[in-house]
């Protein structure tokens, strides 16, 4: 059994910093619970603020201190994200306490090429989540957890049980959970390291302090079994982030959404799948005290399921740029129910056919997100003689390579029968032309009819009959145009000639 422990000493502060938005990191920040400081960052520690002092004292020590409320569920959500990221490496992941994640990696070492390579890849995977991680490896779970928590000598790999015991012997007593609570008493007795504690009679220690202290000591030294409950992956992803200050601009919303997207990618990676669609709910500030808070929902669907947080962020940014938010945003929630089981994205250096196609789909997705779904389309040939119905625009991403067999066969037919007798440009609405001496006028000049008439009669079956004689005509500047005259009877003063298109 090989256990890898990941200790996140600054988890609460980092989870709080994610709600702040893009403000500067040099400010002293501290977390408060029950009017006492629980966690401080480096800048606050320099001002002399320590965990345990009162809130008023801390504010007196530093004028620009930013105080936030300690929230256990926010920390738990951040730790869950780290556990999900670790689940991509091994199915045996468990949470030890509020700041440590334990992985059992014995069965994964061969796949990832050794412990060092696995630790490196784990570090790369955890990098987007933005936490400071201290890791240690040991043969027992609790031993690894203690060593990871020990800032001075606990890092690195402990190869076997005797080495672990030797290292733990020199570890300080306050590493043990119960040891922290009884730290004063232990210090008064002169017990500083775990070796000292083990030399004491067991019954006496159990009676004086607690059974749990002995239990933890035995489990760390490998003398007692340490069964754990593994973390289960939820079937659907749901997370929320309550912003510290209300977000007035899109950038602030995007900063919070980036944190949520990193968690989404960690969860999807743990499930060995890619994200196909996700939904972002934004809860806004209620305008009046009594009314319900308005909310905006953005649903983003990807044509090609992806696992790249940068790409998801880009799509979200383009969609957010198109909408105007009703009110400042207070809370963000991210849902994902749709996953596609697929391998990890292609990471090769030189472009291949598959990666080119994927790149094109990403470009189309981005254009669609910015301009709208109908603005990016393909043309499909329809077998209809009426020219205005002969081409149809289909949205680009639903019709990837999807002309039907009928269409393709019909296109071959037209290739042989009518090579270039159709103009490339068709006006969306036929332009009425005035007439002089039975010749149509374009820009005030008569057109010279060169070829025709080509009679097209169609559409009697769907209520828009067209009976037209088409002529190819030459305009004043020798460009060729396609005009038609209706064969259906018209009233005396009405227009009969229309311009359908130009030969480009």
């Amino acid at each position, binding site marked *: 059994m090989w256990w890898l422990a990941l200790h996140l000493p600054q988890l609460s502060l980092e989870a709080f910093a994610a709600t702040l938005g893009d403000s500067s990191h040099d400010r002293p920040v501290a977390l408060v619970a029950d009017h006492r400081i629980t966690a401080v960052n480096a800048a606050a520690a320099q001002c002399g603020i320590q965990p345990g002092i009162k809130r008023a004292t801390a504010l007196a020590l530093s004028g620009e201190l930013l105080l936030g409320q300690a929230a256990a569920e926010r920390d738990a959500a951040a730790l869950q994200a780290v556990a999900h990221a670790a689940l991509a490496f091994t199915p045996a992941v468990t949470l030890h306490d509020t700041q440590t994640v334990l992985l059992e990696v014995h069965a994964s070492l061969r796949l990832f090429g050794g412990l060092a390579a696995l630790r490196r890849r784990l570090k790369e995977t955890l990098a987007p989540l933005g936490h400071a991680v201290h890791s240690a490896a040991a043969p027992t779970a609790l031993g690894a957890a203690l060593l990871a928590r020990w800032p001075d000598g606990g890092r690195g790999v402990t190869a076997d049980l005797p080495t672990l015991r030797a290292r733990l012997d020199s570890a300080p007593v306050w590493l043990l959970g119960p040891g922290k609570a009884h730290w004063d008493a232990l210090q008064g007795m002169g017990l500083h390291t775990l070796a000292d504690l083990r030399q004491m009679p067991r019954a006496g220690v159990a009676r004086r302090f607690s059974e749990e202290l002995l239990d933890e000591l035995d489990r760390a030294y490998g003398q007692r079994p340490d069964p754990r409950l593994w973390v289960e992956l939820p079937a659907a992803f749901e997370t929320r982030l309550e912003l510290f200050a209300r977000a007035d601009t899109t950038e602030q919303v995007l900063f919070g959404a980036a944190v949520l997207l990193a968690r989404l990618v960690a969860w999807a990676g743990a499930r060995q799948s890619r994200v196909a669609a996700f939904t972002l709910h934004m809860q806004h500030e209620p305008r009046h005290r009594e009314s319900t808070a308005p909310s905006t929902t953005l649903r983003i669907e990807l044509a090609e399921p992806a696992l790249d947080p940068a790409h998801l962020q880009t799509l979200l940014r383009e969609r957010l740029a198109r909408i105007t938010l009703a009110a400042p945003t207070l809370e963000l929630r991210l849902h994902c129910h749709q996953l596609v089981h697929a391998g990890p994205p292609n990471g090769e250096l030189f472009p291949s056919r598959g990666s*080119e*196609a994927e*790149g*094109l789909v990403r470009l*189309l997705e981005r*254009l669609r997100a*910015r*301009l709208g779904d109908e*603005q*990016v*389309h*393909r*043309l*499909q*040939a*329809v077998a209809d003689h009426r*020219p205005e119905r002969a*081409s149809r*625009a289909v949205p*680009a991403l639903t019709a990837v390579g999807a002309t039907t067999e009928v269409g393709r066969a019909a*296109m071959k037919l037209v*290739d042989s029968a*009518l*090579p*270039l007798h*159709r103009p*490339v*440009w*068709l*006006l*969306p609405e036929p*332009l*009425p*032309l*005035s007439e002089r001496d*039975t*010749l149509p006028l*374009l*820009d*005030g000049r008569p057109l010279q009819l*060169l*070829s025709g*008439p*080509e*009679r097209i009669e169609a559409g009697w079956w769907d209520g828009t009959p067209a009976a037209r004689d088409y002529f*190819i005509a030459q*305009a004043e*500047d*020798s*460009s*060729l*145009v396609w005009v038609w*005259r209706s064969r*259906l009877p018209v009233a005396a003063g009405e*227009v009969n000639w229309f*311009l359908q*298109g*130009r*030969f*480009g």
Partner: protein
Amino acid sequence: MIQKTVWAYSSLVNASLPLFQPRLLVSVPSAATLATPVTAPLAIHPSLWRAHQLGRTGADARTTGFDALDAVLPGRGWPVQGLSELLLPHPGVGELRLLAPALAAAQVGGRGLMWFEPPAAPCAWALSALGIDMRQLVVVRARQALAMGGKGQNGQKGRFERAPPAADILWALEHALKSGHLGAVVAWLPARLPADALRRLQLAAQAHGGPAFLLRPAVARHTPSAAPLRLVLSSAGPDLLGVAVLKRRGPPLAAPLTLELPQVLSPTALARALAGRASVDAAAVSPSSTPSSTDSRS
């Protein structure tokens, strides 16, 4: 052999010599030895050329499909990794028949084609008759409306009526060029563009792996542009296209070309056009007469 000497005055650095003493600094061989130049600029670097010759493009140029046009373009074809600007009086002079061979060649190998804001609805049948694969063509439109046509019955406006500068299309075009996943790109842009738009597009086109065509109204010929190749197209006759090279890497073209486009007109219609009179008697074929066969061409 008389050696020509070049007399120069020494600089003040060497102050030991009197000031106005001529000093031999360098000797240049006479005209006889200059007949064979020591090195040709093309041998030094592919992007160097002499002013009276056609330049070379850095990468391979794509053939246009028209030999007469290939002969006058630097690199014998459309430039790759650079913009080619075509200026038209109005859409429909034959520009797509000119571009069709290059676009069809760019689609070989499954690469895509992207059109930005075409001036009217393209007809899928006509494009596939020209050899363009519909499955690999994507059309991108901006969020603003556009109208096109000539002056019709009620004096309705047409031509290149466009809403104010198409920022959407410039953004989309830049990203499409930078992605490098497309075979060729064709964009219809207005005559008035922001000052640096074309420079940005030219820089973005360096990452593009094929030709990039910008089609603009002919009034834009008087504004400078960063595109390395600029052509002015006009209709020179039925099924004929007049091409004037406005700008290219090389000497200016003396006379405009006339290219023969793929035929739209049948031979009799062509003869009628050249004869200059409309012999298709439209009055004889009026709605009241009996219908003739569908594909009769008189």
